[in-house]
Structures are given as structure tokens and as C-alpha cells.
């Protein structure tokens, strides 16, 4: 195909004229680069210096006087060159060069583009957020440049993690100092869901981390409350403060691949006070405090109980499969002046039914009852419904009562998978339904919601996710860094 030009050959022929590259063997293509490149650069410089003035003064005659001007100029480059071109003098040459523009000039599109770009900024930012998580920044970090910041922190003895802050609160960022093991100190604060929720704890832990013993101080300054029952009114939103001190220990035991226990025992004291959110009324203004046990008095309990998990699930290339049963029984016995004892019983079933490797159903149902004696259950220990874990279209702990029944159906399908199956993201659409009631036999109505979200999963199971949910009190966006379903 004959579209070869002669210009390139001209450079090759003239290259050896410069002394310090004359030893270059131009029959060997590799080693010729320096000579060609440098020779070419010099040729350009000389050609321009010679051709430019002529070109500028060329008459616009019919004989095309400046035709091949550049080529002619190159051909007439003197065989001797002056002193070397320095970077500074090269700047002057570069300024003289007539080249095509380096970028496209502004035009009508810029006038359209600016407002459009501003309008699209939220979408772009959302997209950036999604992909930062999806791509997994850690996977982009060079592997051989030593441990990353997280690993360095853990190695030093400071472990960041995401933990549940417990009743009436969502998840929080926890930092646990283990540098002086077996002693530990940890603290956590709410990320988004429960402003003002935090705890600090200290104690001792075993080497295998299966047993902790110590003390914890937990405080919620703006816990919210709408009243009791599934028909509680949205307008009755109020707030309170809850302080709690716990002394005791937890013990974890993995009996087999399918059976594990989490047990706890200890003593706790609870006190409530006026909520610190001035935009909301205090619960004592909105509700009769005599009807809310725990709102006026300090309540002390000895606590003992266990949570058993029978797990027949497994992760098959990032996709959970199987079924998991979780049962929980905790006894709260009032001590001192506390005239209250109650039992918290909870049962949960989680099922994962794959449609194929990329799509699956996930089902979850939970039932909870809190039978009590004496003054019964303090209002802040009522069963809760709403939040990022169940009935997601409603605010955290939006509904409370003694008992609870809820279920969730999710259709999960893959959105993205890391090439070596180390992580993936999956979309999910869901429908939640649930109710709270004084006792299981007194169900009056259910609340429902639906929505969709995105969940990230690693080889150890599902993790951070966000969702958009719609219930009959409107739209809600939620985000969790951990996933227990």
C-alpha cells in the first residue's frame, strides 16, 4: 500500500551529521532512536528558523512559491551547527513553533456544557460514591508496597471496626485499643442513624478474643420515641436521653461448624432524662410518664442470657446459600428498688435460595416477645420496629411495643463482580412487613414498605449496603456498613 512518505527517510539520511551520534548504526532500528530524534529536533529548529521568515513574506502568487518550503529548508540545513541548545533557549524556539492548537477552542458547546455539568453534578457525585465502594480502593493499591493503613493500625494495636450501638441506636464506628492486651479499651460513636449515641468500654480479653470482661458506659442523648403500638402517630415524635452502665462479660463458643453460642451475664443500671434535641419535645411532655416505666426512675438489672445460632448457610462464590436459625433468650432481673423482671425471647430465620449464581431470593422472618413481671418492661427495652435492619421505610425504632413480628423478602442480583471473585456488588429489591403489639395474639395491623438498594459482598459474606425505601410515611434512604442478613 503506497502511502509511505519520504520525510522519515530524509531524517534517517541526515541523522549522522551530528558528531556525537555518528557512531550509531542506523541499520539497527533500536539504537537509532537517539540519533533520529535528536537529529529531527535539530532539523526542525533550523527548518523553522529558515522557513518561517520566508513563509511570512511569501507572495500569494500563482506558482505556490512556498511549496515544500519546510522540506527545502530541511535540505539546506547547514552541516555545522552552532552551540548546543539549552532548555532555556529551547523555550524560545518552542514559542516560535507554529503548531496545531493543543486543545479544541471554546465554542457553543461550552455554553451548554457549563449549566448542564452543574445540573448533573449530584448524579456524578453519586456515581463516584458508588464506584469508589464498588471498585474497592484497597484493590487498587499496589500490593507489594507493604501493609495498608488499616493493617498498620491493627498491627500497632488499634482496631477500627463497625459495630452496632445497641438498643435505640444504629451502627457506629468503633476503635479498640489492644496494644496492651489482655487489657482493652474501646469506644464507638454513631455514624448517621442516632446522633449523640456513643459508648466507651474497658476490660480484659482472652487471647482468642472469645471472652471479654469489663465495664461499659453507653449514652444516647437524642433517642427518639413516638409512643407505643403500631398505630403510634408520626406527629408525636419526642426525644429522651438514656445513660447506661454495664458491668459483666460475654463469652462466645463455636461448638461446631453449624452451631455457636454467644452468652452474656452482668449487671446494669439505666437512667433516662430529657432529650438534648431542642427541636423535639421531651417524652415526658408528650406522653404520660407514669405509663412509660423507666422514664422517671433509675432501673437496675442483673442480666443473663444466650444467643444460639444454627447455621446451615455457606458462601458459594460470594453468594450466600442455605438457612440460618437464631434463637435468643435473656433474663432481666430487677435489683435493689427496681420492681421489674422480664424475659426477652427472640427467634429469627434467614433463608437464601439461589436462582442461579447471579440471582437469589433472601427471606427473613423474626418474632420477639418480652413477657414481664412487676412493672414489666422499661419503654426503652420494648421491641423495636423500623430502621436499617427491618421495615426499612420507617425511621429507627419508629414503632415499639412488647412484642414484634416482621419479615422481609429480597430479590438479589449481581451488578458487578471482581475479576477474581474476591468481591461483588449486588442490587436488591425488597418488601418488608411488620407489626408490634402488646402480645402475639393482639395483632391489629401491619406496616409495609418496599425499595431497592445495593450491597457489597466479599468472600466472608455481605457487607456495606445502602437502600432507598418507600413506606406510608414517605421515602427513606439508609446506609449500613455491615450486613447481618
Amino acid at each position: 500500500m503506497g502511502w509511505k512518505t519520504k520525510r522519515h527517510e530524509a531524517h534517517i539520511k541526515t541523522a549522522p551529521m551530528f558528531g556525537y551520534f555518528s557512531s550509531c548504526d542506523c541499520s539497527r532500528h533500536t539504537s537509532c532512536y537517539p540519533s533520529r530524534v535528536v537529529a529531527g529536533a535539530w532539523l526542525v529548529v533550523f527548518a523553522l528558523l529558515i522557513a518561517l521568515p520566508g513563509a511570512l513574506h511569501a507572495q500569494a502568487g500563482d506558482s505556490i512559491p512556498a511549496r515544500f518550503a519546510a522540506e527545502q529548508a530541511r535540505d539546506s540545513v547547514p552541516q555545522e551547527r552552532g552551540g548546543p541548545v539549552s532548555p532555556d533557549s529551547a523555550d524560545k524556539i518552542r514559542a516560535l513553533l507554529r503548531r496545531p492548537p493543543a486543545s479544541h477552542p471554546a465554542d457553543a458547546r461550552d455554553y451548554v456544557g457549563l449549566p448542564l455539568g452543574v445540573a448533573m453534578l449530584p448524579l456524578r457525585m453519586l456515581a463516584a460514591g458508588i464506584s469508589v465502594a464498588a471498585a474497592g480502593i484497597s484493590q487498587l493499591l499496589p500490593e507489594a508496597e507493604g501493609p495498608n493503613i488499616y493493617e498498620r493500625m491493627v498491627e500497632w494495636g488499634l482496631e477500627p471496626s463497625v459495630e452496632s450501638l445497641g438498643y435505640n441506636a444504629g451502627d457506629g464506628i468503633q476503635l479498640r485499643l489492644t496494644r496492651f492486651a489482655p487489657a482493652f479499651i474501646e469506644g464507638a460513636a454513631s455514624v448517621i442513624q442516632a446522633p449523640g449515641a456513643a459508648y466507651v468500654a474497658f476490660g480484659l480479653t482472652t487471647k482468642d478474643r472469645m471472652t471479654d470482661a469489663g465495664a461499659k458506659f453507653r449514652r444516647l442523648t437524642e433517642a427518639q420515641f413516638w409512643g407505643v403500638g403500631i398505630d403510634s402517630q408520626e406527629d408525636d415524635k419526642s426525644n429522651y436521653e438514656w445513660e447506661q452502665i454495664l458491668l459483666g462479660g460475654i463469652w462466645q463458643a463455636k461448638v461446631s461448624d453449624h452451631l455457636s453460642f454467644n452468652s452474656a451475664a452482668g449487671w446494669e443500671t439505666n437512667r433516662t432524662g430529657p432529650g438534648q434535641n431542642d427541636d423535639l419535645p421531651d417524652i415526658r411532655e408528650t406522653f404520660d410518664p407514669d405509663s412509660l416505666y423507666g422514664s422517671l426512675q433509675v432501673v437496675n438489672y442483673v442480666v443473663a442470657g444466650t444467643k444460639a445460632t444454627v447455621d446451615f448457610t455457606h458462601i458459594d462464590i460470594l453468594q450466600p446459600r442455605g438457612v440460618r436459625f437464631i434463637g435468643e433468650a435473656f433474663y432481666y432481673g430487677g435489683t435493689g428498688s427496681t420492681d421489674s423482671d422480664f424475659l426477652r425471647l427472640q427467634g429469627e430465620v434467614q433463608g437464601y435460595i439461589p436462582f442461579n449464581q447471579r440471582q437469589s431470593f433472601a427471606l427473613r422472618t423474626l418474632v420477639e416477645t418480652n413477657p414481664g413481671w412487676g412493672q414489666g418492661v422499661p419503654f426503652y427495652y420494648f421491641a423495636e420496629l423500623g430502621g436499617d435492619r427491618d421495615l426499612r421505610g420507617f425511621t429507627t425504632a419508629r414503632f415499639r411495643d412488647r412484642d414484634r413480628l416482621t419479615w422481609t423478602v429480597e430479590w438479589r442480583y449481581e451488578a458487578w463482580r471482581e475479576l477474581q471473585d474476591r468481591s461483588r456488588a449486588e442490587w436488591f429489591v425488597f418488601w418488608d412487613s411488620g407489626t408490634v403489639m402488646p402480645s402475639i395474639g393482639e395483632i391489629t395491623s401491619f406496616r409495609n414498605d418496599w425499595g431497592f438498594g445495593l450491597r457489597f459482598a466479599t468472600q466472608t459474606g455481605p457487607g456495606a449496603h445502602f437502600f432507598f425505601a418507600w413506606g406510608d410515611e414517605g421515602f427513606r434512604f439508609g446506609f449500613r456498613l455491615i450486613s447481618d442478613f
Partner: protein
Amino acid sequence: MLGRDRLPAALPALVLGALALSGCARGGSLPPLALRPQSIPYADTLPIHEPEEREPSEIWPLIRESTVGELGQPFDPDDWIYRNEALNLTHFDEVVNSAWFEHRITQRDLTAEQMRLGPTSLEGRPSPPYKVTRLKGAGISPGLWVEDGKGDIYLFKFDPPENLYLASAANTISNRLFWAAGFHTPEDYLVTFGQTSLVISEAEGAPTEEEVQEVLQKTAPLADGRYRAIASKLLPGTPKGPFRFRGTRKDDPNDYYLHQNRRELRGLYVVSAWTNHVDMRFANTMDVWIDPPGYLRHYLQDFGATLGSGTVRPHNPREGMEYNFDAWAFLARLPTFGFYHAGWEGKEFEVIDPSIGWLPVASYEPGAWKPNWPNAAFRSATVADGYWGAKIVVRFSDRLIRAAVEAGELPDQRAADTLTSILIARRDKTVNYWFGRVSPIEGVLVECTDASGPGFGVRFDDLGVAVGARYRSNTRYEWELRDEGRGRHWKGSSRAPGAGPARLHVAPPGAADACRAGFATEKPSSGHTDVSAERLAVLRIRAEKLGPTTTPRPRPANVYLFWISDREGYAVIGLEH
């Protein structure tokens, strides 16, 4: 990608196509190609002050390209109205030799031996003993830095134990192909050696025996107990950090054109697609300080993730079809509840051969191919850039491809034959695709003027016919002359001739074809400095296939003509595809 096959990306274009500003023809508000200054050979090799070495983070550019770059594309007016053409061009739509690119296969016939050697030389081959000076740092493949018996420094990289030959062969072959295509590449050699050839340096910082053994345990010896590695020679100069495919390097005054506007980097997409170089990104490039005279030369390096190799494993069928994070595919799956499946999804695959990996032909779509990470230069590419890249690819004859594959020293002839066949088939698909998107005419000449009347004859080579992308018998040329200075606006069409170069009789409707012999044929020239818009005419030629076709109409080529009044005729001074 370039094929604009994505529906989401096409929608805004459809909606706002009606708003396309009429003045925004190809090239926007820039003057026509023939009226612009031309790019200057080696202008970017003038001396500069030595820049600092830089190792900027790749995370944010990758995230930016994956999200804002990808998702923002349909909302980017640049894409709705027209796509900006490359800027570093000559009047004949070509690039000149520079610190980025050197015309090799495009301007001379390489021998099989030259192809086998590529950028390497016989005297440059590493020779034992190999003194290990340190362990390889970045990257995913195991490796050692080695000083050979001559005192030259090489990076030895090994194959995964399950796929011996895989990465080393792919690296060597692609190294030759990219070098021949015109890009600057390091000298990559294949070496086999016994453990006795390895000695550990006594210098400070050298690895221990155990550390070296640990590296060797990540690969496996060949049947004869020797190890095989790719030995990449230290680049000739001082590394100054990788280059990006967007923007310019601020401390390099020679770096004039925005990288995404460079034809070589846009056209690199085509060569990358052909060779399945899915890892064509920042991390696999390097700016090297060449002193004297003191400028930055821009290298492509590390070809381990090319052809069927994913460096430490065979390529996955997803690679080349979807980005590592493909924002549009990601979002497209939401409303389909997971029932939308791309072609590669959910299909079991078997590698072609352990030494070849996975390199598809049937599912390879040259315009829809994607690297693992979005690349600003690739995304900016137009069909003209694609055609430019395809003109490089078409120059790789079967013989040269076979020679390049031979350089990879695959374990048996069957594997070499298979890989050669695949590369040939992918080349043909690549060329047919891009040559079908433009009017691939070259070497345009004004052949004669009419004895009576203002008409004239034009001759050109139709590369589409030459490479077999179209048959002569079903090729038609549609042309349109616009010469405002002389008030000429003529149109016409003709069929391709049965043999020889294509010819058009450009004349008013009804004029007889009466070419006057003896008119001095003007060679294509780009040296006209007195060309003004009044003396410029544009002959638009569209070469297209007759009959039903599933591909879009090819873009016409603009032939720029200069009016020579004393000869009453035109000369060709530019060509744009």
C-alpha cells in the same frame, strides 16, 4: 466504546441531535485541517530542564474515568454534537515522529527477523551469571531485579505455575507488535536458566536466599528443571514516572497537546484491542529522561496482560468486553432484575491452551472492545483515529505476525500456529470494522483537467478495496465539490473501476469526461503556506458498499484542494478522514 453501541450513550445524542449546531462541523470552530499549522516532527524532543520523578496515585484517575468519565459521557455536550478530532496532525491526517511515536511498520517493510527481534538486539541478550540485586516491588507477577554478566540491569518476571509460557510469551509477542506499530517499548528478552545461574548480590538491600526461593516457588520450572522468565531491560534513561492518558505533564514544556487529543494515544486503542491489551493504563507506561539532549520519551511497558494472558492467570471472558467497573453495565442491571446478561456472563469457559490463555475471535468486536479501566484517550477517539490505528494493524502481514509469535517461543508448533491464526483473524476483523467506518482513500491526486469545461479527474487508492473490506463490484463513490471561491458546488457518484486505482470525474452535471492529457499532475503536498480560504476547495468523497448492509454509512473523506489560477486547476493539499 468507539463503536457507540451503547444505548444510554446514544439517547442524549438522539434527543439533542436536532440541536446540533450547524456551525459545529467536524473540527468545531477550528479552521479546516489544511488551513491549520501542521504538527512538527520531533518538536517534543527539544531540551528541557530535568523533571522530577513522579509516582502520582492512579486511584483517583481510575475512579474518575470509571465514574464521571463514563457516566458523564452521555451528559457531555462534546459527545452529543460531535466528537473532537485529534489535533497533532499533518494536513494528510497523519502523525509525525515524536517522543511518543516513531513510524516503523507504517513507513517501511519490516523483515521477519526485525519483527522477531523487535526493540531487542542480539548483543543485548542477558548473559549469565544473573546476580539478584532486589525483589520486584510493584505489580502482581513474581519477579527479581537482576544484573547480568555484562553489567546490564533486567527485571525478570515469571509465569504462573499452572500456565507456564503464558505471560512470558504474551509479553514478548506484544512487545514486538507494539514496537513495530510505532510505540516506544523496552527491550524484553526471553530467558531460560538453571538455578545455578542465579547468584545473590552481596550489596546492601539484596534479598536473602529464602526470599529468592520464595519468588521462584510462585512459578514452576520447565520440564528440564530450568526456569523461564521475561527479562525486561532497564529503560535507556532515567525513569520519571508514568504518563497519563488525559491532560499534559506540567513539568515537561515539550508536552504540548492534551494527551486525549493525541492521535497516537487515541489510535492506540485499535492496536490494544487487536492484541487484547486490557491493562493499557497509566501504570504500564513510563516517561524516560533521555540525556543528552534532555527530553522525555514516552514508553509503553509490561505487556504481560495481553493476548490471552492476564499475567498471573489466563484472561477472563469478561476482559475486553467490560471494564473492571463498568458504570453503565452496572446501572443497566438494576431495572432488569438481573435478567440482563452480557454475552460473557454465566458461561463456563476453557482456555484455548494453557500457554495461550483466553483470546476470543468470534466474540471480539473491534469497536466495542474495552480495556479493564476506562482510558480518556480511548474514549476521546473517533472513527478517524480508529482508521488510523487500523492502518497500522493492516500492515502486519501474516508473515510478520507469525514472526512475532515465534519470538514468544511457545512450547509447541500447534500453540504457535493457533495463536498466529487468532491474531490474523482478529486483525482482519479489526481492519474490516474500521475501514468500513470511514472512506479509506489515500494517495489522492488531481490527474487531469477537462479539455473543455471546468471539470477535472481525480485518482486515489481505495484501501477498503485493497484489503478486501469491500469488493470493487459493489463499491460506489459519492462525491461533492464545494469551491466557494469559484462558486462551484457539484455532486456526483460513480462505481469503482474493475482494476487499478479509483478515478472520479469531478464536473458539473452532464459535462463530458474529456480529460486533457499532459496536465502536470500535482503530487500531494503539504507545504503551501499561502493557502487561504478563498483558494481552498473541498472534495468530499464517500466510499460505500452497495446493497443492504448492517453497518452505518461510512464517514466521507475530505480532500482539500488548492486552486492554481495560472494553470486553471487544482492541487491536493490535504486529506481528512
